[in-house]
């Protein structure tokens, strides 16, 4: 048993888990082409959920705040992106990669910017007054979620909104008898780029250093002369902006969104945060990839159990590692 764990650690430790999951799925699914499609879908979905979850994990790790209204940022991000893309419909449909890119950047940019601004407002008005009281925090953020969803309905109405996809991202790569959707590949690499950017910020910059230290021991960081509440705002804004970005990407992925888009995903986002461990983007990435893969594999194998399977995955991981797979070190 010890030799097994030693080998496990040597080959990447918990990062092996998605690989193991993929292999097991391959055995169960059988057909390689289906497996590839599902795996790509799972990885893409995982990356988008990573965007939504990473912010939540850092916010909770650093500030001990759980924002039950987090899904509102996802929903708003999705709808803003959809609106921008619809407004720039000409550029979206055009054959020019340049115009497509501009439209895409405008959509994602608008969503992300909104997320940051809304995050600032949210942190100052809703979160700050209830920093230490967990009960009121949960209640007030649920209240904020209700209000946000209603505002969403006021602005966009209740009917589903279709999301135009930029021409260059439609269609698939055909390799042999496997069709790989271009959008999914794009989503995967965008998420990966964000992860790398986050990782570099955290490990190479002073702010990143402060965040990593603050996640472990807030008091000590303050005792060293830093105003950590300013850091809170920044992290909260970043987390909300990322959530909105995730929502925007998800809107493009689904093609059709309803006002429930945030709440549909929030359970998976929470599961990712718990599985991954708090305060850690590495954990969030890991958890997100696992959840994305699991959701897609199980949706194919036993459709009824799709959400339940992720729930079971979470329970299993909690029994093995009660603090999650890769949590930040806590004082």
């Amino acid at each position, binding site marked *: 048993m010890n030799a097994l764990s030693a080998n496990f650690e040597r080959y990447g430790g918990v990062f092996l888990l998605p690989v193991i999951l993929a292999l097991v799925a391959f055995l169960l699914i059988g057909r390689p082409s289906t497996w590839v499609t599902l795996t790509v879908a799972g990885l893409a979905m995982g990356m988008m959920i990573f965007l939504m979850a990473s912010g939540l994990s850092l916010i909770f790790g650093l500030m001990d705040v759980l924002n039950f209204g987090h899904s509102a940022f996802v929903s708003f991000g999705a709808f803003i992106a959809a609106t921008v893309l619809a407004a720039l419909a000409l550029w979206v449909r055009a054959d020019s990669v340049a115009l497509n890119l501009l439209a895409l950047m405008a959509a994602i940019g608008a969503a992300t910017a909104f997320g940051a601004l809304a995050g600032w407002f949210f942190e100052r008005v809703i979160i700050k007054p209830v920093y230490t009281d967990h009960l009121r925090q949960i209640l007030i953020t649920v209240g904020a979620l209700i209000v946000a969803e209603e505002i969403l309905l006021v602005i966009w109405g209740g009917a589903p909104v279709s999301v135009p996809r930029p021409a260059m991202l439609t269609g698939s790569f055909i390799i042999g008898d496997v069709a790989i959707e271009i959008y999914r590949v794009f989503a995967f690499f965008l998420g990966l780029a964000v992860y790398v950017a986050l990782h570099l910020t955290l490990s190479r910059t002073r702010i990143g*250093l402060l965040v*990593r230290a603050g996640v472990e*021991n807030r008091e000590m960081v303050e005792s*060293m*002369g*830093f105003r950590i509440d300013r850091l809170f705002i920044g992290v909260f804004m970043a987390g909300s902006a990322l959530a909105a970005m995730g929502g925007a990407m998800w809107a493009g992925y689904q093609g059709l969104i309803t006002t429930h888009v945030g709440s549909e995903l929030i359970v998976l986002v929470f599961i990712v945060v718990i599985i991954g461990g708090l305060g850690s983007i590495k954990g969030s990435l890991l958890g997100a990839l696992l959840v994305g893969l699991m959701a897609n594999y199980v949706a194919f194998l036993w459709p009824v159990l799709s959400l339940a399977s992720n729930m079971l995955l979470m329970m299993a991981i909690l029994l093995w590692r009660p603090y999650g797979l890769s949590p930040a070190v806590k004082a």
Partner: protein
Amino acid sequence: MDNAILRLDGVHTDIGQYHILHGISLEVPEGGVHVLLGRNGAGKSTTLRTIMGLWRARKGAIVFRHEDITALHTSSIARRGIAYVPENMGIFGGLTVEENLKLAASGGRFDRARLDRIFEIFPAMNTFWDRQAHALSGGQKQMLAISRAIIERRELILIDEPTKGLAPAIINNMITAFREIAAETTILLVEQNFRFARALGQTVAVIDDGRIVHRGLMADLAADEALQERLLSLSLEAH
């Protein structure tokens, strides 16, 4: 005392519904090592945390160099040149030793001279400079914690039970290190270990049940065995 760098006046602190500090009055003269002695649960750590603003004093005043810092935010207190080395050392396990120090260095850059000084006082730091702090031994962590406090010039260093759980050999090294550090700043040392305290301290205050029960020179206390017996009769390690 006119040259008191820190003065506490009738400080009362509550933790939740528990009244921990009952009117603590204390003066820390500038320069050298000053000891706050007391057994477990006497209120030593609470006193330091109150000075640092981590617990709010309900009543009373804390004056640092003629400035009332009682109601200030912890980070403001720290920026006035007060460093704090807590009981659990407060080092950041997920960061490397270098990163821990970098955080404590002003502007994120090391003053070459001060860094060299640290290596003089703790030569062993060279051997674990790149390691993640959580992988260090107890003694190494304590070295790091203290280095963090002296990487910049400080007016006052608050240290909470630095010898807790450390081997005697390491404690001896600490005595030398502390003497060197105290030469250029003021240290308020909270301890249970009387031997360690006696080797370093110039003045001493004894705290029991949230009250100061003795104040005076360390030399006097060290010479008076009966007094030691009376004040320190419970937990203190006298070896």
